[in-house]
């Protein structure tokens, strides 16, 4: 992925027709809305920390909106958006140091390539997740509810379930592994 800002490659003076601009802004809004989950998953994959990922995701959205008039609609949207998101991750890394970003820049670059490859199927995996969640044992489903719907901290879940926070972390790790396997199997079954 290029390290230059891809939004700078288009001359904004080319889009001066108001009607064209309105239409392009509308199309841009559709593209951005349509790809929100992919953008978020991409950022999460290279940041590795949920709350930092959310910050970067929202900052990336703001930057994307600011650069909307610069987007060349003859080109693909996602590579352009991912490049901007990647730049935001690197900027966040510079601002925050290593506090909440797990990875060094070379690792981020490696993860970028892998995350881009995976992003194509994210919508199908999102659909498959619903079925996989319902197939979880009740105890695991409760843990997912507590962590992701009620957004409880690990320590809070640990206290209410009389476990250590680390034990809850390990349980969540296993649940995510199990869900990843389930999603993969369901998609294989649907495609075959």
């Amino acid at each position, binding site marked *: 992925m290029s390290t230059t800002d891809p939004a700078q490659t288009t001359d904004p003076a080319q889009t001066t027709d108001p009607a064209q601009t309105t239409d392009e802004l*509308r199309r841009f809004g559709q593209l951005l*809305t349509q790809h929100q989950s992919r953008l978020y998953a991409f950022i999460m994959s290279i940041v590795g920390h949920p709350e930092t990922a959310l910050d970067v995701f929202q900052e990336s959205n703001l930057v994307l909106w600011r650069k909307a008039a610069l987007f060349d609609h003859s080109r693909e949207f996602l590579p352009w958006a991912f490049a901007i998101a990647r730049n935001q991750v690197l900027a966040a890394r510079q601002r925050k140091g290593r506090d909440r970003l797990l990875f060094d820049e*070379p690792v981020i670059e490696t*993860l970028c390539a892998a995350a881009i490859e995976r992003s194509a199927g*994210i919508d199908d995996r*999102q659909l498959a997740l619903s079925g996989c969640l319902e197939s979880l044992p009740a105890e695991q489903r409760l843990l997912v509810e507590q962590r*992701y719907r009620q957004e409880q901290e690990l320590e809070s879940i640990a206290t209410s379930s009389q476990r250590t926070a680390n034990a809850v972390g*390990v349980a969540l790790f296993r649940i995510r592994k199990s869900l*990843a396997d389930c*999603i993969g199997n369901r998609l294989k079954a649907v495609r075959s």
Partner: protein
Amino acid sequence: MSTENPLDEFRELWSRSETDSLSAEDRRRLSELIAGDDSVRSAMLDQLEVEALLRWHHGGVRSTTHPAPLESAPEVPQSGWRPSRAVVAATCTVAGLLVCVGLLRYSESLPRAVHSRPTDSAAPSPPDESVAESAKPIGSRHQTLDPPEGIDRQALESWSEIPAAGTVYRIVASDRIQLETGWLRLESHKPSQLVVDVVNGSAASKSGKFQIRSSRVDDNGTFQIMTRIEVLEGAVRFANDSGTVTAKANQGITCKAQDRPRIERPRDERPRDERPR
């Protein structure tokens, strides 16, 4: 630690990263494992991807994509200022709202074909003690999107609707919408009944604010239509042939494949640091 199986070592480190208890040495080792071992990298990407899917699924990142009222929009300085997270979210959502408004006003291609209101429909009554509970959805679930000839474009009278991109719906009367697929946010300007028909049943409200989504979900290898409603203000009653439920503010309703609708427990809307630990 480096003599362990890399995947076991990764699992141990990753579980600890959730409690923010990684040392600098742990971080260095984690980066080393991810950069040097394909199986570890794949396992980590699985973890992060499912983490993202779960947060998305449960609404943990919805603030960015959901439209906000225009009056909540702050001005964003062009430079020399770092916007707060809340301001960024509000700005993004307002930008999304503006696009939706532009879409409504300027695009003739928006799928808002109109139909006459079914005359003998029995919609769920709005949640009001004075209204009977024997609500049933209307029977117009599978109409085509082509508008019938001679029917004028209609608009809601006392409610405003904000659709997400890709949403397919039609306003069948000044107090009735059919949502085919996608996501709608609805807000009343004055007390007046509104009915939203989806494939799994019908939702009714007299006033307030709610959002309703109709989407496909994978159910053991077969795709089903899932309806989700989140009540932000007021109350919403949802009814189909299998049952009727009423949700109040901060509650949700889910219904899949025309099963009995269910009330979802309310989300804890308090800031994280004010929630019980």
